[in-house]
């Protein structure tokens, strides 16, 4: 170990203090503020500290607020499942069927649109899905449909936009898991008489499950907290919780309600984290 004299230990404190101070000043304290504001209420344009749970009680008594949470959860579960189901085969094909020297480029290509700006990506889907968009125009041209499909401003559009983003993210995480597996597993399984499908189902899939869970958890967290995709693609039909939070901030300037809703959102994420913890922990061993 390094020499831990009092002198050098004091120096170490100099190095670590700025980061700690920054985190306390701009993360811990603001968070404490937000919690206290969530216990206040808005009177006119003023925030009055009443120290009660009114904002939280409102959430459960006003159906449009509660519905926001259910819409968010519904979209998030659907997106997480769909993205995983679509990403796994792609990651597997890249890891197993694409020649070694092309794998890196195939992976980079698969996640290239990941690097477009988030706002721009949702806008691009709007171009594709709108009533006059590429899909509707093409389908009309071919004659499959006679009326444009109402694709944009629907929850479906939100789901498509999300799945597009998370397929890329999950392909990346699942691929890195598949590639870490020793080829010996496959050889051993084949030696013991398993066919390709059995090897995949009983050996490869269980071994990559922790990685899938990490990716799925990440998808869940990012998806349920996102405002842009549902706002641009989903419109104002079925509001998600982040949309409702932003509405409280913007139109109604109701910071206490927005704060309370955000803390509820955080609670949901925490519950998801705790229920995934078993699998998330497995990764470390």
């Amino acid at each position: 170990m390094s020499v831990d004299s009092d002198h050098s230990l004091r120096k170490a404190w100099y190095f670590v203090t700025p980061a700690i101070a920054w985190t306390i000043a701009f993360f811990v304290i603001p968070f404490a503020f937000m919690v206290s504001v969530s216990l206040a209420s808005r009177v006119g344009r003023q925030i009055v500290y009443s120290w009660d749970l009114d904002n939280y009680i409102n959430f459960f008594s006003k159906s449009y607020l509660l519905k926001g949470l259910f819409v968010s959860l519904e979209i998030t579960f659907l997106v997480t499942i769909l993205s995983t189901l679509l990403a796994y085969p792609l990651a597997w094909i890249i890891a197993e069927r694409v020649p070694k020297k092309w794998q890196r480029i195939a992976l980079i290509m698969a996640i290239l649109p990941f690097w477009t700006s988030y706002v721009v990506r949702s806008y691009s889907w709007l171009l594709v899905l709108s009533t006059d968009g590429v899909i509707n125009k093409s389908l009309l041209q071919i004659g499959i449909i006679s009326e444009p499909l109402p694709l944009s401003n629907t929850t479906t559009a939100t789901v498509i936009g999300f799945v597009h983003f998370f397929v890329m993210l999950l392909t990346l995480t699942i691929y890195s898991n598949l590639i870490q597996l020793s080829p010996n597993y496959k050889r051993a399984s084949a030696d013991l008489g398993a066919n390709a499908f059995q090897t995949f189902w009983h050996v490869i899939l269980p071994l990559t499950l922790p990685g899938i869970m990490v990716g799925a958890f990440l998808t869940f967290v990012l998806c349920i907290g996102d405002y842009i995709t549902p706002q641009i693609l989903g419109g104002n039909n079925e509001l998600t919780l982040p949309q409702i939070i932003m509405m409280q901030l913007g139109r109604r300037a109701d910071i206490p309600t927005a704060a309370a809703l955000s803390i509820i959102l955080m609670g949901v994420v925490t519950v998801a984290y705790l229920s995934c913890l078993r699998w998330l922990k497995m990764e470390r061993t």
Partner: protein
Amino acid sequence: MYSRLSNVLCGTYFIAIYGFIFLPVAVLVLYSFQDGTLPIPPFNGVTFKWYSEVFADSKLMSALANSIIVAVLSSIIACLLGFCAAYALSRYRLPGSAFQRILITAPMTVSYLIIALGLLVLFNWMGIRLSLWTVGVGHVVINLPLCFAIIYASMGDHQKNIERAARDLGANNFQVMLLITAPMLMPSILAALFLSITFSWDEFIISFLLSRFDVTLPVEIWSLLRSGLNPKTNAIGSLVFLLSVGLLIILELFVFRQRSPK
């Protein structure tokens, strides 16, 4: 080894999913050249009109400059703070170091919306006016845990011996950190820096809630969206895509390539 049927299936799936992934980007770029007022079919022909409009739009251009300034400055600060903390926590046995690690990485577990809202409440209460500075503060908050985690993870024991050797040869702590540790960790420091820059560059919600008059590019694009579908939005979107891909190529060539031979 694999049957022809499975080859066909895999090939079809591969092409279909790449099609899905690239469809929106292709449409975005194609219709940025649209010779017409709407970025929707039919495609009327190629014009660069929308790109010249983007470059003539002073609001977009200042937003672009703002974005670059905020991204670079906040990432440098985040990297610096992250590196120092990682150095101290991996090289010295500080009391409560586990707690300090948890504290520094904690913002990673909280959504950007909550970080933004917290800072908004704090700044309101303190009477601090919203500006690019407040956006920058928010971006350091989200990137510091990332930089710390990346750099901390790459501080291994094998570098300790070299550092000890440097100390034996008379280097002081500061020299060791600056001349020995930092160069050895340069790949991960650069990776953290570039990753932070891309995150800050693309970040919307913190920039949106913590800025007022001077905004960053995603926020300016957001306000463009109110005018509906517009080839000009396609043009700026395509440019942003090009810039991000350029950054990615730099990252790939200069940062990750160096690490792969290990």
